[in-house]
């Protein structure tokens, strides 16, 4: 992976914060999956198990003013950004108490209060919109930054190219965060992508680009610190290609046949979540008790959110005529 000189390193508090966000993602996903299995949720679900370090570290650097544009596999990104879980659960349960009154669902969650501006189901489309939000940040004279999340496969679609070029020419405060999990649906990275590292594409946009170990909090921390600093100070965008692996396939129900047993097992053996937990304990950053209590409180939060979501009201059919335009469409 690329070396950064004088790379900033996460201190104990930072590592704890990153771990907290990772665990929040993982605990929340675990409950989503078990609720789906019980037949109490009926959405298509795109797991991010194994990729938690990326949004957890990215979000560590973001505040509520900062914004993200994410994708169908984006629940991790929202949870990492500390979106409240109750409206999230109500949304994926299709209830009117959901962030989007149940009209968007998991693939289209929006929550401006925590900066979750767009969740798109169209590969590549998070990037051009992130540019527009970043342009607005510049016009506002604000130092807020925008993160566009996407996958390795998305780096082959036209919108990626157009967005990175424009962001660079306009020096927009965007961080392009590519989670390279080596697969686009069932297609292996190298069978679809013509360059060995996506970060090299940044050369073609006169933009700093780095291949980062997306499962390593130190590497993610160092590169994200630099990218945020660059964006906030008006120097423009950065492309971070974050290497990772998704343990649970593309979408729930996926049979994984397109990957080898070995590579999957190797990736799971290197699971970054227990590894970071171990490190926190080993390095004396957190005690077992602290971590257990963290886990317990997260599980409580998730359980409360689940109960809230599943107990919500169904949206009224009038909702079909609302939010199409500002004015309700007459019946």
């Amino acid at each position: 992976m690329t070396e950064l000189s004088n790379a900033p390193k996460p201190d104990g508090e930072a590592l704890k914060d990153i771990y907290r966000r990772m665990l929040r993602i993982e605990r929340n996903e675990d409950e989503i999956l078990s609720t789906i299995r019980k037949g109490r949720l009926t959405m298509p679900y795109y797991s991010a198990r194994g990729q938690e370090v990326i949004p957890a570290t990215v979000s560590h650097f973001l505040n509520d003013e900062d914004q993200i544009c994410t994708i169908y596999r984006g629940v991790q990104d929202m949870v990492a950004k500390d979106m409240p879980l109750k409206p999230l659960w109500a949304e994926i349960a299709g209830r009117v108490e959901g962030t989007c009154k149940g009209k968007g669902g998991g693939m289209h969650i929006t929550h401006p209060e925590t900066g979750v501006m767009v969740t798109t189901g169209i590969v590549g489309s998070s990037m051009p919109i992130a540019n527009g939000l970043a342009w607005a940040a510049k016009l506002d004279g604000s130092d807020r930054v925008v993160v566009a999340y996407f996958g390795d496969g998305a780096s082959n679609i036209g919108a990626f190219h157009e967005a990175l070029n424009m962001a660079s020419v306009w020096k927009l405060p965007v961080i392009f965060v590519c989670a390279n999990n080596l697969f686009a649906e069932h297609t292996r990275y190298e069978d679809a992508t013509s360059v060995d590292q996506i970060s090299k594409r940044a050369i073609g946009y006169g933009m700093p680009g780095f291949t980062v170990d997306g499962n390593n909090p130190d590497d993610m921390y160092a590169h994200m610190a630099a990218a945020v600093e660059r964006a906030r100070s008006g120097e423009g965008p950065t492309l971070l290609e974050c290497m990772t692996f998704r343990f649970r396939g593309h979408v729930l129900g996926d049979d994984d046949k397109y990957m080898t047993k070995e590579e999957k097992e190797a990736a799971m053996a290197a699971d970054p979540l227990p590894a970071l937990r171990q490190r926190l304990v080993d390095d004396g950053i957190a005690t077992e008790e602290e971590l257990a209590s963290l886990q317990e409180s997260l599980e409580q939060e998730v359980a409360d959110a689940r109960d809230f979501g599943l107990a919500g009201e169904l949206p009224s059919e009038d909702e079909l005529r609302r939010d199409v335009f500002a004015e309700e469409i007459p019946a």
Partner: protein
Amino acid sequence: MSEMEKMHAIQAINSALHQAMAEDDKVLVLGEDIADKEGGGVTGTTAGLSTKFGTDRVKSTPISEQAIMGAAIGAAMAGYKPVAEIMMMNFTTVAMDMIVNHAAKLRFMSGGQTNVPLVIRTMTGAGWQTAGQHSDFLEGWFAHTAGIKVVCPAFPADYKGLMLSAIQDPDPVIFVEGGGTFFIPNDVPSDQGPIPLGKANVVQEGTDLTIVTWSAQTVRAMMAAPAIAEAGISAEIIDLRTVSPWDKETVLASVEKTGRLLVAHEAVRNFGPGAEIAATVNEELFGKLKGPVRRLGGPTCAVPFAKNLETAFIVQPDDMVAAAKELMG
């Protein structure tokens, strides 16, 4: 009589692709994840093709719909017959230039020197809770585009027969695979051959009322049929199968007989494809209708996620029954 096989739509398409590739080595297949290494397509529709016909003719692609369509167009101009998958119909939006400004127009703009015999396979439909960006029926856009044919089958045998015709058609065809047609396996003759494009199928004869529909909505019309009959209404149900060019003759002959028309589709009603059929029938049969032509289609909104809203979005069999009763006065 030929033997019958029970097949789902997806199996029928798969069978057509196998047959077409075996019969004509100019037939190619491309799209995201469509080769066997990638599982033969996310729904298995192209399973087995790359193993049998090789990865030169059956190619998984990058996520690059413009490049997919460009590759198909160029190969088609050079004499091949590519079947390109754009996984979901909403993703045609990233390849509209290639489809509309190029595939559909190159024969005309070249004065007939080149042609583009390709098939675009694409899947869509509400009912899977995939919400606003994975569910739209956009056949109206393509029907409004000169130079491309629009096929929207409902039954497995039609999927097979129309796919065989679409592949051999000398012009571009968009072949819409409606999610609402995937559930019900149906009889497909083991020797099912090509079914001509542009010909509707009268799936139920009747004398009081004509129902024109296609794709998933035909399936719902069949579900509505018993209740309509029970209400004492003799409905003629026409499965259009090809939306453009559509079978005016069959529809006009039917409405001339029944005097009443209900057009129903899953696409949004407003400025939808049903309007063309309604307007044409009104124009051609002016003075001969016993009542106003009724159109049913989606409300003017994106397809919602919540199950109850999604259900309300779709024109349900009950809505068709109610409309049929209302039409009878």
